């Protein structure tokens, strides 16, 4: 029963958060200078035609009226039409979400194995030479600006050496892997150090934990101790960190997708912001918010599954 309570509390919280977010985004986007009708009709458009387009989309209504209609639609599950393409925002999001999800999954596949390997290496002899190098490389990896790395890698690996395409999403699974390799590596280089530090610190702390000593006192071999006792206990804090990272990556994909021209949610968000496509921006923000809350919930459930103490 308590798990159900956790889920119901989180969903209740989600509704509150979504309400807050849609209000904040609505106000922020509508207050930004620039008029979507003008951008839509183009520079040669006359004042009347722009006014007519605004009227057609209800942009000339007072803000609060627009917000009420927006909320009414939202409650009925319709997050509105894109001003630019006259298409439901849901359709646009479905079209653009696959590259971002694929990229996120790709980064995880590229980031998790090295993280585990490096953390084990580092934790074997805390303070040893290998450990220092891993740590310092980690700190360096942290400070490299992702967009600069993106530009440099696309310049050298992409264009001059031609190993990997510098843009797009490709077709078919191998096409995706091939096209998204550079963006994924650029993000992984930034993600691996953070995860490794966390897992390594947790592992080191666990090597001296009392229940490890107790297990050793009962004759368990080092291998059994590591896989059955140390790793499950050490993985919890890192799991939490990973949840935060993934939620951030989905929202923060803007930079990588802009540099590598990946048609993902990040690119759609930047274009929507530039094109003042209000409902796409708001829809995307809601999607980011929902995905963040769901991912955090998933991580909590996984943690509850692993750690009985959490099942309050």
């Amino acid at each position, binding site marked *: 029963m308590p798990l159900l309570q956790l889920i119901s509390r989180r969903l209740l919280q989600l509704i509150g958060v979504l309400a807050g977010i849609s209000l904040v985004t609505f106000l922020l986007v509508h207050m*930004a*200078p*620039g*008029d979507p009708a*003008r*951008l*839509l*009709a*183009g*520079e*040669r*458009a*006359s004042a009347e*035609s722009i006014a*007519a387009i605004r009227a057609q989309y209800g942009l000339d209504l007072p803000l609060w009226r627009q917000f009420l209609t927006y909320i009414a639609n939202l409650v009925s599950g319709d997050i509105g039409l894109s001003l*630019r*393409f*006259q*298409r439901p925002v849901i359709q*646009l999001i479905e*079209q*653009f979400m696959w590259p971002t999800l694929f990229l996120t999954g790709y980064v995880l*596949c*590229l980031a998790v*194995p*090295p993280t*585990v*390997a490096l953390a*084990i*290496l580092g934790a*074997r002899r805390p303070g040893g030479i290998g450990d220092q190098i891993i740590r310092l490389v980690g700190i360096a990896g942290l400070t490299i600006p992702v967009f600069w790395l993106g530009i440099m890698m*696309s310049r050298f690996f*992409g*264009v001059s050496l*031609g*190993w*990997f*395409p*510098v*843009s797009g999403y*490709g077709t*078919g699974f*191998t*096409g995706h*892997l*091939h096209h998204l*390799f550079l963006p994924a590596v650029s993000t992984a280089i930034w993600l691996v150090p953070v995860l490794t530090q966390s897992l390594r610190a947790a592992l080191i702390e666990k*090597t001296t934990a009392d229940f490890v000593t107790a297990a050793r006192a009962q004759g368990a071999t*080092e*291998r059994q101790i*590591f896989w059955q006792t140390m790793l499950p206990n050490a993985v919890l804090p890192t799991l939490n960190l990973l949840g935060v990272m993934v939620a951030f990556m989905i929202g923060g994909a803007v930079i990588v997708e*802009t*540099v590598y*021209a990946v*048609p993902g949610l990040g*690119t759609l968000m930047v*274009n929507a912001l*530039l*094109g*003042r496509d209000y409902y796409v921006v708001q829809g995307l923000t809601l999607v980011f918010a929902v995905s963040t809350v769901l991912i955090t919930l998933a991580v909590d459930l996984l943690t509850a599954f692993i750690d009985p103490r959490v099942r309050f």
Partner: protein
Amino acid sequence: MNSLSRSRMRAASAVLHGAVVMAMGLCWTVPAFAADVIRVVSPFQTTTLDPMRSAAAGNIETYGQLYSRLLRRDAETGALEPGLAEKWDISPDGKTYTFHLRDAQFSDGSPITAADVAFSLERIRTDKKSAYPAPLGAVEAVSAADAKTVVVTLKSAFAPFLGNAEIWNMGIVSKADVDKRGEEAFASVPVTSGPYEVKQWKPNEKLVLEPNPHYWRKGYPKSDATVELIEIASPETRIAMLKAGEIDVVRAVPWAQVDDLKTVETVDMRLEPSTTIYMTLLNHKREPFSNLKARQAAGMAIDNKAMAKAITRGYAEPANTTLPGSVDFHDKDYPGISYEPAKAKELLAESGMAGREVKILATADALSQQMALLIQAQWQAIGLKPSIVNVDGGAWWDATGKGDYDAAANWWYNETPDPDLAVRWAVCGTCGSNSYNTFYENPKVDALVEQGTREADPAKRAEIYKEIQRITTEEVAQIPLYYAPNAVAYSRRLQGLRLTPSLQWTLEETSIGQ
């Protein structure tokens, strides 16, 4: 004591090793080579397929491919030729045009009738939501005399009318389909009259076209390849994709990359004629540029020859008047604004505007930044205090529209060789564009603009437009910078593809070579 056993280390390194091999293995898969697709890349977005709803860059190229007009232009010479109208006759007073339609069908097989033509043109002219009614400004009424003849009556003789009737938003749409589906008609797969129809539209990503089997020009489009109009924002990515063979055509090639692309043997780097002019808008509504002397000083401070050479590597020629260089009746031998910084400094002092703050608007792209920085430096030299403010596209139009700026460098182009639309857009105070947001207004010029359209004799029209250029350049409505050709790079496997001065792709003339 607690060292981990060897076997685990082997497991960890195996995982690492596997990831590397997988990555290396990937890069040998060659990109899928599609012989029968023409992939055109441009920075602009297709936001609608309804010719009435927008006149923005990105949509105008699509309209040309989807909807035929009454007339068409020859791909090579640009001369007007019969389109959907086989022939037409003009009344002696030049106020009535009668078009005789040829037998033609829409993409769904239904016949194209005079009613469709009347509906399409009236829709552009009268509908409140029409984005660009200006070309039909002089039209009184459009009516279908019978199934095959369309009669257009004008308020007064209007020389540029035939040219205007060929503009991309004058495409003929199916009245039956629009009546049946309304807005839906243009949402995803519209009924088209042009050489191509829509196969799939993935907004913000690409538009896929395929040849229209019912196109009235038999044997066209020459190649039965599908066409992909792909939207890629960053210039470097576009160039990289072209070099990697992932795309066939790239528009708006940055000047710095032109020489580099000329050396690539698989790429045909061309500088095609255009009606584009780069100039600096000045805000006449507020000081310092409400003052004529200050504007003239600002003009003389700009060395547009050096700027043209520096920014475009000399591919663009300096501009001498406020109108595009390749527009009819452009005054070639007008001297233009001379570059005399010393005199400019004196003039500025005289004008009392020395030391004034000047707010220069610029967007984030490299070209706009370069122009803004060069203008800022040259104005600083003569005693102004210019500062650059970065804005995005939406905010640029918002600020210039409200007159909340002092100067802004930008480009514009004219859809037709005929200068009428150009002067209406750039220098006419009362034609609805506030002289391209500069709020320049000279009643004499406005009168000359109207006179220009009523005059039938080309020699007299030339005089009128020369006079307009002389006045507006002397009064520095805008500071002309340079006339830039269209820098477009084509993959050598395509033949017959060009970007016309009115920014239309000659896709129906294109065939795929070896």
